[in-house]
């Protein structure tokens, strides 16, 4: 089952599709209002895109500098070629520190690497502490959005889940009350955790520090209590200097949720101070992960996708995402940016995704770092066709179409015959021949003459 089928199932529920579309459009509208407050919006996009472009040209140098500075500050830096190596490194750190309980703040990278199931299989309890992530974790499903992981759920469904999992009264669906319950439950887990894992929004080469952005403060609590902090960072997430953070932080919150700034913007550099309560000294580990990113970097057609700051704006604006839901994509990251990233990870599995797009271009215009998303999706289509990931019959059909469209005589004969037949067939038959086009749409009435014929006739009449 691919995107087409899952999307059809989603759309079949008309009322839910309306709700999902409107919830996400509301976020897009908040983003628009936030962009309105900055007269320099477009210049800011240029600046951010420019920094990223420069960064992607010198990643090795920047990360070497980062490693130097971070190490000097007392952190330990690890390098992971792929998801398996990342998971191995994290597990090894937890094992040597005898950790059984971990709290984790939101990180699409660990999601991409499948860290949770890997650790759970080794007997380690991982608790996602972002409220939305916690909800999908309890439901044993994947996030449906990169910023709002549980955006596909109505509050009644969350109420039911909490009733089952945390014993809240049946029917309780007040968001504030449910949040309070989740917080109480999480508080105990924060206190019991022996290690905290976070993602990284931006690493800074010059200082060896990194920034984690949240709205719930869960990354701060999750790293302030345990003695071990492991931060997992994708190869693309570095900027040269602390000053370079400014345009990104301004764009990120506004593009993601319409906030002028995220509630918590936390900078980490060295292991936290020892609280003097005995026990081993606190440690900070940074795991830098490639997992296919250098492959994308080597592809000029797609490398700019590595500029992505995971704001989610392209999902919110995408008319297809809003009407098919995040789970329809079957990839860690859904929506336009997901459809660009996924085929490079597994072309056979995700060959359909670049077609889950009407090429309207809204994503490219909303993107704070100007990733040319819809043009990349178009390019993916031909890359995947050339590498044998399109059905042969489909390709043959287009070869025939191309023949007709590049031969004037053939085009003329084929279209005359086509219209002659179409005008004589009962509409019932035509509808059946129309295939998926006519499932929901009436065929246009077929004119007796083409434009060229009508023009010729007119010129004969009145020369």
């Amino acid at each position: 089952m691919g995107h087409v089928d899952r999307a059809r199932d989603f759309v079949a529920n008309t009322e839910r599709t309306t709700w999902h579309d409107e919830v996400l459009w509301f976020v897009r509208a908040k983003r628009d209002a936030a962009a309105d407050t900055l007269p320099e919006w477009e210049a800011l996009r240029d600046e951010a895109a420019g920094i990223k472009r420069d960064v992607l040209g010198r990643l090795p140098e920047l990360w070497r500098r980062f490693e130097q500075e971070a190490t000097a500050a007392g952190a330990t830096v690890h390098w992971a070629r792929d998801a398996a190596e990342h998971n191995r490194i994290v597990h090894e750190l937890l094992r040597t520190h005898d950790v059984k309980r971990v709290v984790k703040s939101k990180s699409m990278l660990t999601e991409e690497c499948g860290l949770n199931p890997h650790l759970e299989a080794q007997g380690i309890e991982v608790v996602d502490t972002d409220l939305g992530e916690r909800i999908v974790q309890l439901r044993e499903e994947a996030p449906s959005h990169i910023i709002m992981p549980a955006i596909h759920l109505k509050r009644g469904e969350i109420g039911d889940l909490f009733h089952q999992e945390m014993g809240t009264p049946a029917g309780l669906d007040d968001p504030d009350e449910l949040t309070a319950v989740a917080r109480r439950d999480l508080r105990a887990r924060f206190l019991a955790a022996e290690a905290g894992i976070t993602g990284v929004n931006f690493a800074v080469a010059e200082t060896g520090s990194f920034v984690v952005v949240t709205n719930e403060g869960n990354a701060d609590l999750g790293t302030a209590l345990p003695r071990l902090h492991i931060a997992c960072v994708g190869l693309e997430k570095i900027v040269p200097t602390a000053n370079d953070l400014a345009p990104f932080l301004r764009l990120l919150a506004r593009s993601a949720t319409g906030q002028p700034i995220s509630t918590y913007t936390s900078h980490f550099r060295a292991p936290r101070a020892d609280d003097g309560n005995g026990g081993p000294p606190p440690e900070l580990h940074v795991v830098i992960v490639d997992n296919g990113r250098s492959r994308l970097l080597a592809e000029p057609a797609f490398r700019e996708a590595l500029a992505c700051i995971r704001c989610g704006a392209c999902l919110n604006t995408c008319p297809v995402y809003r009407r098919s839901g995040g789970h329809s994509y079957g990839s860690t990251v859904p929506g336009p940016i997901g459809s660009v990233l996924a085929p490079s990870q597994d072309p056979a599995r995700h060959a359909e995704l670049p077609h889950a797009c009407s090429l309207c271009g809204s994503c490219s215009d909303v993107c704070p770092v100007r990733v040319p998303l819809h043009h990349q999706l178009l390019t993916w289509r031909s890359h995947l066709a050339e590498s044998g990931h399109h059905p042969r019959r489909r390709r043959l059909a287009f070869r025939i179409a191309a023949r007709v469209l590049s031969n004037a005589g053939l085009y003329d004969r084929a279209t005359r015959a086509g219209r002659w037949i179409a005008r004589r067939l009962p509409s019932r038959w035509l509808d059946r021949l129309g295939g998926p086009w006519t499932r929901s749409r009436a065929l246009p009435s077929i004119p007796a003459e083409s434009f060229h014929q009508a023009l010729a006739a007119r010129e004969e009449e009145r020369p």
Partner: protein
Amino acid sequence: MSIALFVPCYVDQLKPRVGLAALDLLRAAGFDVEVLDGLPCCGQPLLTAGEERLARDVATRFVEGTRAFESVVTPSGSCASTLEIHGRRLVPDPPGGRARVVELTRFLSDNGALPSPPTEFPRRVGLHASCHALRELRQGTPSETREQARTDPAAALLREIPGLELVDLTRRDECCGFGGVFAVEEEAVSTRMGLDRLSDHRRGRAEVLTSTDVSCLLHLEGLARREGPPLEVLHVAEILAETHLGAGWLETNAIRGADGSR
């Protein structure tokens, strides 16, 4: 200035009157127009299907076949964008250069002296923004950006028509869901997108639905005819022809069969 008119295959076959309207408007504006024959396609259906090499062949034929002209005008933002945005990447300039491909309303507002003033068109009109005219050709300012405002030439021409009221939309530039092969392969989502656009126009009490692009209109018209109150669907060129070339132009140039008659 040497001008050619390009009537793309689906307009040629399914909405021939749109081609006639474009031609008559250009002539009325004083241009000596040559109608392209034997070049039915810009390559777009092949390109969006992922068949870039086939698309390049078709686009190359087009670029070669039109290089004697200064401009090629077409009543399709989508085909113009294919040739201007992707065609320039796919097909290198032939020696002596290539024609610039321009969407009709853009061409008319940049160069046109339409016989004015237009006559009355007392209808509520919903203008559907074609994504390719808007976001590829930048005819207008996409709602996502905060770029300096650009006028949409189609809207500007329609606004000059007395009696014509453009309806306000809740989402002024959301995609209709046509998307070429997308309309067939992702039929369910495409349909839903189109229905949502239609209800926006109907909420605005549109009596006529129009656009610079026949492809969007074929999709929306097909959906509208299956359900809901009747909605007349006209290309912008048809409205301009009716109001600038003498009331009754639409009827005089009706094509047998195109209105359901045999």
